[in-house]
């Protein structure tokens, strides 16, 4: 009873600015990027419904924009560094519904914002490398296991996406979308530290597999 009252008290998310940006940028972005999606298999082609966590490799600062063109039919809630929410452009990141995370001093408030968003059926997107990768897109840096903890609560699927590094400003955006991964099915909802590390490794291997699919198609 108390829980349902808490939920009704929550402020409804205002997507006015988000939708304005998305609609305004749609046509110029499609002309510029000419996105091409590949899929790991038939299961990966299914439209993502309800709460889920998208993870992707991080080649550059425009990746959040690119991902909007990959899964275009959903609103994304990007997990971004708290520094973006404190600078001059804070109004923009707040407006497009980013979720700030203090990487040097994590709080449960951040954890709850992410898990609550997924429980409300929203799509949360994060880059498990934690930063733009140090090789400029050639190799992926080690994934951080935080994403596992986010997806465990509520048993939300993780959808891996691999974005090919764009060599030029006018290069086409090419991505491979993987099939949703249900980590609760694999290890239950109370894994050990060792199992969390295994899952993190597994997700990184999945990203590598998607990269190989991209290489074989190119």
């Amino acid at each position, binding site marked *: 009873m108390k829980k349902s009252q808490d939920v009704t008290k929550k402020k409804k998310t205002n997507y006015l600015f988000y939708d304005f940006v998305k609609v305004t940028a749609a046509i110029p972005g499609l002309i510029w990027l000419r996105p091409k999606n590949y899929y790991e298999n038939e299961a990966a082609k299914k439209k993502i419904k309800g709460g889920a966590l998208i993870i992707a490799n991080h080649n550059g600062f425009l990746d959040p924009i690119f991902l909007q063109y990959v899964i275009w039919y959903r609103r994304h809630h990007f997990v971004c560094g708290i520094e973006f929410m404190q600078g001059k452009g804070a109004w923009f990141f707040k407006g497009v519904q980013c979720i700030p995370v203090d990487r040097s001093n*994590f709080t*449960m408030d951040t954890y709850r914002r992410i898990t609550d968003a997924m429980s409300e059926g929203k799509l949360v997107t994060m880059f498990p490398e934690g930063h733009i990768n140090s090789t400029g897109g050639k190799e992926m840096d080690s994934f951080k296991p935080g994403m596992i*903890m986010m997806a465990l609560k509520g048993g939300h699927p993780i959808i891996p996406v691999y974005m090919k590094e764009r060599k030029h400003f006018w290069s086409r955006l090419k991505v491979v979308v993987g099939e949703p991964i249900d980590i609760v099915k694999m290890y239950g909802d109370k894994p*050990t530290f060792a199992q*969390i590390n295994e899952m993190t490794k597994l997700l990184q291997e999945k990203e590598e597999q998607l990269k190989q699919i991209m290489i074989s198609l190119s």
Partner: protein
Amino acid sequence: MLSRNEIMDKLRDILLFADEENKEEIAKADENTDLATELGLTSVKMLYMVIAIEETFDIRFENVGFNDFKIMKDIVDYIETNLK
């Protein structure tokens, strides 16, 4: 009301379940044990532990960052304060 020793026992139980590779260190942990250097608690392991604490003690960690907890005593203090 739980005593500090009982809180410590429950914290050890949480860690013993989660960290199979570090059982010896956990078993001898006391209030002065350093979370990072002695128990090897990284930020994700801290997150795991805090989620488990919230479930076990039915409390909520609010307005605190994980950096606020350096040694076991800091966690026991927080639980004790919030159980009241």
